[in-house]
Each structure stands twice: as C-alpha cells, then as structure tokens.
C-alpha cells in the first residue's frame, strides 16, 4: 500500500517539478544540465569537449608521475612505424622543412673537419699557384683553403626559377640585374619537361631526380622539394655552397607557402613573396672579389718593381764598371784600346799591350774590379810612353836603388848616386832601350874612385921603373912606395878588362947587362922579374894578367938602364 502511494506521488510530479528536483540533486542549473545531456548524446561534441582538457590532464598526470614517459614511448614508436609503413612520403614531406637544416648542420660539421685536414694536407702544396694563394692567405683574414676555393670558382647565378612540381608551371622567377628578359614560363616548363624526361629515361626510383645539367660554361642546378622545384641557371663554375643556398630558399618557400603549393591552381600572384627567398640565390663571385683589395696584384707589382729596380741597379752598376774599366785601360801607360763590346755578360776589350805594361788583372784589382767581368784580346806592341820607356830602361839597365830615371824627348835622365862601374855599364847599354836616344847623367854622382881610361892606365903603369944596384934584389923604401902606386893602377887595368871584356896584360920586364958573369946576371934579372910578379899577385892583380920577360941590354931596341925592372901593357 505504501509503495503504491509513492508511485502515485511520482506520477503526479509535473515536468517542472522534476526539473527542480534534478537541479536540487545535481546542484546544476537547467542550462548546464541540458549541455551535459547534449554531450552525452553526441560523441562528436563530447570528444571536442574532452580534447580541450585531455592534453592538460595528461600533462598533469605526467607531472604527478601517474604516467611514465617511458611507458608511452612504445606507443609513439609503433605509431611512427605504422605511419612510415603506410605512407613514407607524407612523413618525409612533413619533416622536409626541418630535415634539411639538421642534415646540413651534421654534414657541415663533418665538412669542417674534412676541410681542416684538407687544409693541413694542402699546406705542403708548393706550386707557384698555391704559393700565390698562400701569400693571399697570409695577408688576409681568410684561410688558405678559402682562398684556394675562391680561386677555383668563378660564377654567376643568372636566373632562379621556382616551379610548381605537379603542374610544371612557373611560380616565380628572379634574374640578375643586367641579364636580358627570357620567356620564363615556357623555359620553366621546358626545364621541368627535361628533368622529367631524364628521370623517366634513366631512373625508375621516385626519389631520384636530375640535380644538374651542364651545357658548356652554363650549369642548370635543380633542387627538388615535395611541392616545388628550384632551378638556377649558373654561368661559370659554382661552388657546392650554392646548392645549400638553393636548398634553404626551397625550404623557406615550402615552410611559408605550403598551403598555396598544395592548392595551386594556376594563380601565381601569391608567390611574388618568394622573391625574398630567391633573390639571395643570385650570387656572383666577382662581386665578392671586388670588395677585397687586390693584395696579390699589389704584391706582384711590388715584386716586379723590386725586380725592375734591381735590374736597373745592376745595369747601372755594370755600366759604371765597364766605363771605369774602359777609362782605366784607355789612360793606362802601355795600353792602346781599339774597341770594347759586351758579350755573354762580359766586356770584351780589344787593343794593344806593351810587355812592360802592368798586367790587366793587377790593374783591375787595384781598382777593386772583378776580373770575371772582362775578357781581353790584346796584341803586343812597343809603347813610346815615358812611363813604359822608364820601366823598359829599368828592366834592361838594372839601376841600383839609389838611381832613378826620368824621360823626356828621347833623353833618359839619370839621377842619384852609383858606382863608377854601373855608370860605365849604363853608358854602354842605354841605346838598347827602345825610345832612348841619349843620356843625361848630370845628376848622377859616382860614389867610388873615378874610372881611368886605358891610355892613362897604360901610361901610368909604363912610367914605373925600378933600378937596382949590382947584386941587389930588394926594393928600397922609395921603390916600395912606387910599387904600391903601381899595384893601384894595375888593379884598375884588371877592372878595365872585366868591364870591357878585354885581355890587356902587364909584362914585367927585367933588364940586365952583359957585364961580368952573363949567366949570373940573367939569373938575377929573372929573379927580380919573378919577385915583382909575386908582389903584384899579392897586391891583388890576377896571375893570368901577369907575365915576365928578361932582356939583355944588347937586345934592347932602345937603350934601357941595366939592372932595372919596368912594365909594358899589351893586349893578349
């Protein structure tokens, strides 16, 4: 009965009352309850509602430690693996904008190490070109390899095309300032066609693509992105860095214009903004080079100037040397120059030379000139130069140190002092000296006794006569004095013989009489003659100059005093 009453009571509650009851029980107003009901009824709405709270809740749970990251990892790994297996291209497209920089960073680190080791390896490069680059590196803030690479690449990017990959339509085109306009639309499509053609013809792999085409000095470099292609027309020899520029530009285009690229239907206006990504690709190396001071050119100029200066200095020095040598030999006594000429780096000197002239090497040495720079072609001649005549006279006449010569107008002037003997020799031989016609000995003093002439000597010797008493052999005191004087003159005769190469002899003539014992007289006379001969020998007269003769009075042509010794000079 009680249960029935309760049921009746419930049935009797109106909708409003029920609502009021719900609000009291849940503590929610009508609108909130309706929202809750809607969420429960519509899973989609419920999911949206939950999605706003779920990330926050998960984060809170992780912070609290209720969820461990390590526990979640397998789920994420499985998800990624499944995604890759299902459609690898999608993930590749998503990662494309970040993969490039990450890969480049890793590669650039490796490249840096490679370049460093390359730098060390190339330090040993000693070719002229490498030495030139080394000099540039020395005087600039760049490394040797940078300098080397900058010389290896000389190029200019003339056009950059941004092409939509699917439609092959040109999205944007940039060209270098002075380059002529081209039909960019058609060329872009044709480029696309060519790369497609190459890919279709030679590669089956979807990932492979043409990345460069070379036509003579012009290169076409292509960088492929998921939705767009960048193609750069480069003249010259571009460095690998240019490809990085193109990649970065392509990544920037994809990052900033991905929706437009995906939904592209031919409208290209939006891609005008890609200009800021494409223009930096219009690089030309000449511009960079222009900013650098031409250090090498300056150094080369300095080296050339130093070389030129040295050459001029050497030429002047050589000219001075040759002029000095020419002047030296032209003015030197005993030389007569006919000509000079330069040959094989030497000065050849042609001319005449007197035997008594100073030797060329000594002359050059006296002026501190190297004999290696000269070659002489000299013929002999007789010089009439005063100096040479004096030298010739000195060689022929061999004057003592106390005598000096001077020469003027054919006359040899002899001054100083000498012995009489040398003067005699001088007078006999001066005419053997070429150029000397006469002697002037007024200034020459004889230091020893005067030389007598032959007639005086003969006369002096022959004036002596020694008369002896009967049976006397010894000389008196007077006679001894006389004999001393005789020996003096006899020695002069000897000297005369030597000087004149003559053979005058002294005949010791002993006279006797026939009175008394003739034989005894003859013996005494012979003894007297022999005694004088010995005395003369003792006085220094050479033996071969002496001869004895005994004369009886009856044999005399002219009357002579008997018992006398006299002297006769005869030539042998």
């Amino acid at each position, binding site marked *: 009965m009680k249960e029935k009453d309760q049921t009746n009571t419930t049935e009797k509650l109106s909708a409003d009352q029920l609502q009021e009851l719900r609000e009291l029980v849940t503590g929610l107003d009508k609108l909130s309850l309706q929202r809750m009901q809607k969420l429960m009824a519509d899973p989609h709405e419920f999911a949206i509602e939950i999605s706003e709270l779920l990330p926050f809740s998960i984060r809170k749970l992780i912070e609290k430690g209720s969820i461990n990251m390590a526990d979640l990892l397998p789920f994420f790994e499985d998800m990624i693996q499944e995604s890759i297996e299902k459609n690898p291209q999608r993930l590749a497209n998503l990662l494309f904008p970040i993969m490039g920089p990450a890969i480049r960073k890793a590669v650039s680190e490796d490249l840096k190490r490679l370049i460093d080791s390359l730098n060390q390896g190339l330090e040993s490069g000693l070719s002229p070109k490498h030495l030139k680059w080394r000099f540039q590196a020395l005087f600039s803030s760049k490394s040797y390899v940078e300098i080397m690479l900058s010389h290896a690449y000389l190029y200019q990017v003339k056009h950059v095309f941004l092409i*939509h990959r699917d*439609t092959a339509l040109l999205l944007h085109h940039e060209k270098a300032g002075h380059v002529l306009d081209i*039909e960019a*639309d*058609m*060329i872009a499509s*044709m480029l696309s066609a060519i790369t497609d*053609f190459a890919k*279709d013809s030679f590669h089956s792999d979807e990932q492979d693509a043409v990345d460069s085409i070379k036509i003579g000095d012009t290169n076409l470099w292509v960088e492929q992105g998921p939705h767009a292609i960048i193609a750069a027309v480069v003249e010259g020899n571009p460095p690998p860095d240019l490809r990085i520029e193109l990649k970065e530009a392509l990544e920037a285009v994809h990052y900033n214009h991905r929706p437009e690229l995906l939904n592209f*239907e031919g409208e290209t206006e939006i891609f005008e903004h890609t200009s800021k990504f494409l223009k930096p690709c219009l690089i030309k190396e000449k511009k960079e080079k222009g900013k650098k001071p031409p250090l090498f050119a300056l150094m080369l100029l300095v080296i050339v100037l130093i070389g030129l200066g040295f050459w001029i200095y050497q030429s002047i020095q050589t000219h001075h040397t040759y002029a000095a040598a020419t002047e030296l030999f032209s003015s030197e006594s005993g030389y007569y120059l006919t000509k000079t000429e330069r040959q094989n780096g030497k000065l050849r000197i042609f001319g005449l030379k007197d035997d008594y002239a100073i030797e060329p090497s000594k002359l050059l040495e006296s002026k501190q000139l190297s004999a290696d720079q000269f070659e002489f072609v000299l013929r002999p001649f007789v010089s009439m130069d005063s100096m040479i005549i004096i030298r010739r006279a000195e060689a022929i006449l061999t004057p003592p140190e106390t005598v000096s010569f001077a020469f003027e107008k054919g006359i040899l002037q002899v001054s100083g002092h000498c012995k009489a003997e040398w003067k005699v020799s001088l007078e006999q031989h001066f005419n053997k000296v070429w150029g000397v016609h006469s002697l002037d000995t007024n200034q020459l003093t004889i230091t020893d006794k005067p030389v007598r002439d032959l007639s005086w000597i003969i006369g002096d010797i022959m004036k002596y006569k020694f008369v002896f008493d009967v049976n006397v052999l010894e000389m008196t005191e007077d006679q001894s004095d006389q004999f001393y004087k005789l020996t003096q003159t006899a020695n002069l005769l000897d000297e005369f013989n030597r000087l004149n190469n003559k053979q005058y002899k002294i005949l010791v003539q002993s006279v006797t009489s026939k009175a008394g014992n003739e034989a005894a007289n003859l013996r005494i006379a012979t003894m007297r003659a022999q005694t004088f001969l010995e005395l003369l020998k003792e006085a220094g007269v050479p033996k071969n100059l002496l001869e004895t003769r005994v004369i009886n009075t009856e044999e005399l042509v002219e009357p002579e005093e008997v018992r006398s010794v006299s002297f006769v000079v005869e030539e042998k």
Partner: protein
Amino acid sequence: MGKTSLVQRFVRSIFSEKYHTTIGVKIDQKELTVNDVEVTLLLWDIHGEDDFMKIKPTYLIGSSGYFLVADGTRSDTYETAIKLHEMTSSVTKNAAFILLVNKADLKDSWEITDAQLDTLKEQGWQIMFTSAKTGENVENAFAQLTKKMLQNQQYV
C-alpha cells in the same frame, strides 16, 4: 596527326621542332582572354605520333586540360584518341579536354563517321572540327578548352 601544325600558327614558341624528337615534348605559350579573364596557357605539345605508348605519363601529370587531335581522314586515329584519353584521364585530376577532328577542309574524304563521333558525344565528349590548313575553328578551340578549365576551377 597534324596537331603541331594545327596549333603552331596560333601560339608563341621559342623552342624548335627538334625537341619533339629528342625529349618528346615542346612547350609553347598561348595568351587569350575568356570571359574577361586573361589566361596564359602553357602548351605541352607531346610527341607521340600514333603510338600513344611512347608518351611519357610524367608529361601529362598536373595538366589542367588537353586537346585530343584526330585526323578525320584516318579512322585509326579515332581509336588512338580514345586510348589516349583513357591514359590521360587516369593521371590527371578531372582535367578538361576537347577532341579536335582535324582536316575539316577535307570532310568528303573522312573515314571517321558521324556515328562514331555521336557515340563519344553521348559519353560527354566535346568535339570540334578544325583545319590546320585554313585555321578554321582553332582559336575557338583554345577559347572553349580554356573556358572548360576555368569552369573546373570555378572561375566562371
């Protein structure tokens, strides 16, 4: 099929014919105004002769529209056009197309019959008769195709 000579007088070209025999395609450009919209068409004149198997599908991908050109005096070109359409439509996204039956000036000598063409029309094909010799209907063909392409892109 004479398609090159058909369009050559009406387009701007900087590339020579030899591209056909080298890489199999030659790019031309055509500018025209359709319904006050200025349009620049880039034409991929694909070298295929009668053997459509030689055509590289890569050249077709991404195109917005295409002409199929048949020679009215040769019935075999009718079949080829159909096969080409099948291949092209498989690699393009709903691209607009028109079948041009050329040599309209020699209609008396045609081997392609009206019945054949009617069959295609029933399948929704748009067919136009052109003459490379007289230039008949060529400009109009470009305008029609462009209009269809713009319709596909909801410009008109």
